[in-house]
């Protein structure tokens, strides 16, 4: 059942990619032709339809998670593809919250591409649920992994925003898009990661009697936290380092992209390249 729901969700996100790509291209063409793209009613309807598709995809993800949870009898966090479902869900959630505050051409395309991309990448990893080992049987499992996955989703959204900005919109909407959106996404991701690391520490204390053991996954989470912590402090005092205010968007873009490299290594690299107590997802 959950496999069919996953396929339906993926198909919806692919449809959203197509529709939103068409909408973005038409909007750009109209802007180039000096026509009032924003006021074109049919373009607005296309945009709304694109958002509806992303929303339907998110509902599909929710149903997939619920069906899998019911089928295996425990929260679906036992392998990488399962945890990526939560990451895609967090990514969509972060998108819809951001959408309330910011709107720009191609935002829907970035969101649908990102969600479809996460689901596509998840198929590259071995499937099949593993029974939960004793250490994972805790009420902290859902909260800890959920907050970490939401933070990864937010950092991925910041990454997508930075890529979009560097590739297309750098000359058009620099302050609005990056100084607001990428910063807010990274700040929210930092908050969620803080909660994720703390909940993991509390859980480790309950399971093993210590908060922190310098396990490779723990250490890389801390490294990622420091990287975004550096960014937040650097942004606050950029003038001390000779960064001009007009260059802040570029700084945001650099950190959003570089920071996500650390997130990706923490998520995938540690699981596959380094020994870790957290590598049960890849066993």
């Amino acid at each position, binding site marked *: 059942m959950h496999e069919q729901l996953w396929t339906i969700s993926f198909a919806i996100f692919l449809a959203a990619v197509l529709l939103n790509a068409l909408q973005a291209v038409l909007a750009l063409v109209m802007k180039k032709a000096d026509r009032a793209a924003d006021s074109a009613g049919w373009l607005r309807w296309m945009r709304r339809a694109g958002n509806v598709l992303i929303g339907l995809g998110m509902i599909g993800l929710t149903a997939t998670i619920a069906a899998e949870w019911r089928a295996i009898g425990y929260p679906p966090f036992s392998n990488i593809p399962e945890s990526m479902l939560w990451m895609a869900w967090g990514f969509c959630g972060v998108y819809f919250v951001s959408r309330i505050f910011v709107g720009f051409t191609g935002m829907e395309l970035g969101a649908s591409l990102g969600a479809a991309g996460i689901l596509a990448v998840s198929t590259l990893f071995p499937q099949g649920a*593993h*029974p939960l*080992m*004793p*250490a994972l*049987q*805790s009420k902290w499992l859902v909260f800890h992994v959920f907050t970490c996955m939401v933070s990864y989703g937010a950092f991925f959204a910041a990454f997508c925003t930075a890529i979009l900005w560097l590739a297309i919109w750098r000359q058009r909407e620099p302050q609005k898009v990056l100084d607001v959106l990428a910063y807010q996404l990274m*700040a*929210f991701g*930092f*908050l969620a990661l*803080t*909660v994720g690391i*703390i909940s993991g*520490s*509390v*859980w480790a204390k*309950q*399971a*093993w*009697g*210590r*908060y922190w053991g*310098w396990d*490779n996954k723990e*250490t*890389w989470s*801390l*490294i990622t936290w*420091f*990287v975004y*912590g*550096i960014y937040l*402090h*650097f942004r*606050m*005092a950029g*003038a*001390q*380092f000779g960064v001009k205010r007009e260059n802040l968007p570029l700084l945001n873009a650099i950190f959003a992209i570089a920071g996500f490299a650390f997130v990706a290594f923490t998520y995938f690299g*540690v699981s596959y390249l*380094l020994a870790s107590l957290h590598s049960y997802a890849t066993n």
Partner: protein
Amino acid sequence: MKTTDETAQASSPAQKPGAIRRVIRGLKSIRLAIILMALIAAASIVGTLIAQEPVEPGPAIARYGRVVGSLVVLLGLNHLYVTWWFLGLLGLLALSIAACTFSGVRFTLRKTFTLITHASILLIVAGAILRGVAGVDGNATIGKRQTTAVMHVPSTVWVDYKYAGSGGERSVQKESHELSLSEPAVLDNAGVVADSIVVTDLSGATTYKPKVDYDIVEGENRTGLQYSQSSAIGAVPLGFQVRLDDFVVRYYDDAHDALEVRLQGAAKARSIPREVGKVVQLRPDGTAIEMLRYFPDFKMDENNKFYSASNEPLNPAVEVRFTGPAGESKQWLFSKYPDLAGHGSVPEGIKIKYVWHPATVKTYESHVTILDEGGREVQSAVILVNSPLKVGPYTFYQLSYDPETLASTLEVTRDPGVPLVFAGFILLPIGVALAFYAKPLLNRKGRGDA
């Protein structure tokens, strides 16, 4: 941390600041904080790439060679997180945060949010220091129906030893080693086994004969020291007794077995679930396999007759028959001894093994009773992973177990820093959230009012 405006104000003092003020000003610098965070992150990356091992130089030199290994040992990169310089970086960052939090801050509502964030980190650090100074961390391994009144904490000992053999002759005196229940301390003996070991505890008060108080781990290339339960070194009295009444391991119902058949030229092996009486065609030329018998606990009596000694999968074996153009042949396949298959009775071009996947451990439980010093039963409880037991100042965590003897190893801690750390854990996300979301609202309101 100090903002740009504050920096501008601070850089034009009327009087020349004193040395302490200069140090505090330096510690408050956001530049220093960023550099420290970057250095700690970079060092941590190195720590994840180099195997973190016991402090002894032997394993690092064996792993990385004499030159690189010596450099790794010199910089402490093989035990990076406890080196003086890494702890110094963490301490300096804590001082920097403390300077930002408490020095020269005017307490306005806006600044309170950042202050909560920084103070919460300091609370966590203070809790960790308190644990290190006043806490105890040890292990207690208890056999079934046995009782212990002590736990063992890792302890530093001095070791004198000498060895003589084909690898050379050497005498070492006063070498320091840390002993723990879980890991043997390895002596750097360059490929020979020590022939005499004398162990002294850190105070130098007592000398222990190794065979009395230590298990000597002798491998091909090393001699090691390991705690034994009877050792007095590092034993901390609990003030009560813990009896292990029972130790229970529960499993998921996911044990399964299968024949794995690989045909010549095939990229992947084919998995065939065990089903006695089933015939499966392997090749288009008519070669087939039939499963004849299954014995979960295969044994052979004195008359060379095969039988299953029990229904427990202690030595699972399956008898198969191959049929096809090459004729008929029979073969016993053993999951424990996969190399026994294929000696003459398996058709050409086929590799076969019988694979047993044991059930996954679901949970393991220590059923314990706490007795007071007089031996009276005080309470009974079950300790599981994620469900520790608190007795007085100590907390018992289910750490591991010996699968053969079912002896349970419990982590025992006394941690007076818990309230501080948990206060920090609660305040940190609150401070970060307020700094990100309440502060801009106040700033906007302030601008609106102006």
